[in-house]
């Protein structure tokens, strides 16, 4: 071993980290893993909560991947008693604004649609 190598020998972990970050960023776009759906669910829940009390497991977000377009299916269950309140319209408008992603968004609100 020469002197230069001896001094150059640093930890290899940073190299591992950088390689992984680059590789996984690439692999996630091709295999479709993204935390988009998780993030959307959380943010949607926050918006809804400002206006109506809703259970976290009553917000369902689903991504159907298609070849040309993907669809985003948002399904929110809200207690009927308050679903007539005008606040809901504000929440829905905010939602629609949020859903403006490259994917085609489709927001369904079963209860209010039925009402």
């Amino acid at each position: 071993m020469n002197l230069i190598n001896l001094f150059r020998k640093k930890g290899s972990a940073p190299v591992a980290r950088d390689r992984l970050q680059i590789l996984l960023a690439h692999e996630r776009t091709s295999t479709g893993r993204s935390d988009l759906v998780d993030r959307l669910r959380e943010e949607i829940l926050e918006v809804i909560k400002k206006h109506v009390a809703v259970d976290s497991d009553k917000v369902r977000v689903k991504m159907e991947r298609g070849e040309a377009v993907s669809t985003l299916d948002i399904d929110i269950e809200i207690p009927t008693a308050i679903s007539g309140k005008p606040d809901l319209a504000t929440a829905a408008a905010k939602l629609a604004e949020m859903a403006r992603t490259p994917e085609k968004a489709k927001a369904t609100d079963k209860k209010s649609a039925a009402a």
Partner: protein
Amino acid sequence: MAKVLVVTSGKGGVGKTTSTAALGAALAQRKQKVVVVDFDVGLRNLDLIMGAERRVVYDLIDVVQGEAKLAQALIRDKRLDNLSLLPASQTKDKDALTADGVAKVVGELREQFDWVICDSPAGIERGATLAMRHADVAVIVTNPEVSSVRDSDRIIGLLDSKTEKAEKGERIEKKLLLTRYDPARAARAEMLKIEDVLEILSIPLLGVIPESQEVLRASNLGTPVTLASPQSAPARAYAEAARRLGGETVTMSVISDKKSLFGRFFSRRAA
């Protein structure tokens, strides 16, 4: 309400079976009714790690195929009353494990236990997706090493798409269990740090299990490490992880039993 937990990783040999046994025993010690289920058909090992290999009569596939009742296949742990094992088959064809059959067995287990812990086979094929299928919680076992981290990332993708919860548009809880961690090597930048792995995989941390000789000793004895040497670093780390699973907030720390050079020298002299 019962929780179904899958212990998964993509890569083999990272510590899934060790973790299944240790977490199962730790939860059972906390008075929970626990069953550990071996999904590694053809390469079953959980029975051996649990020390129950000579008591296996029927297995998961027998139950799925209706050859045996669930009660006949369940093996009650000799040390902990409320811990049971459902072994995998060593010889039968993997294809005998059908989606419907697994759904039925997991449904029945949910009624009898507080925790159903599924030890996943390695890989991203059918065996691994069947093991995660009905999970409410996934523990992703990862070593601080490039191929393990990459495979964990693939598994997280599967958890978000191939599980029952994901298909219903619900959220599956995912937690990282970093195992075989060596704090000294991480400090010397020879090994990925906890923060590196967390940043890359971006899922919450369940615990950090240090690399330890106690794990091999426990497997030699056929006793989950949490029971074989409860005071050892990996046992304490698993016990804390089990408390977090139970909903407790336990401050995160890297438990290590590495003595300083002086300490080691001293204890050897003293022995």
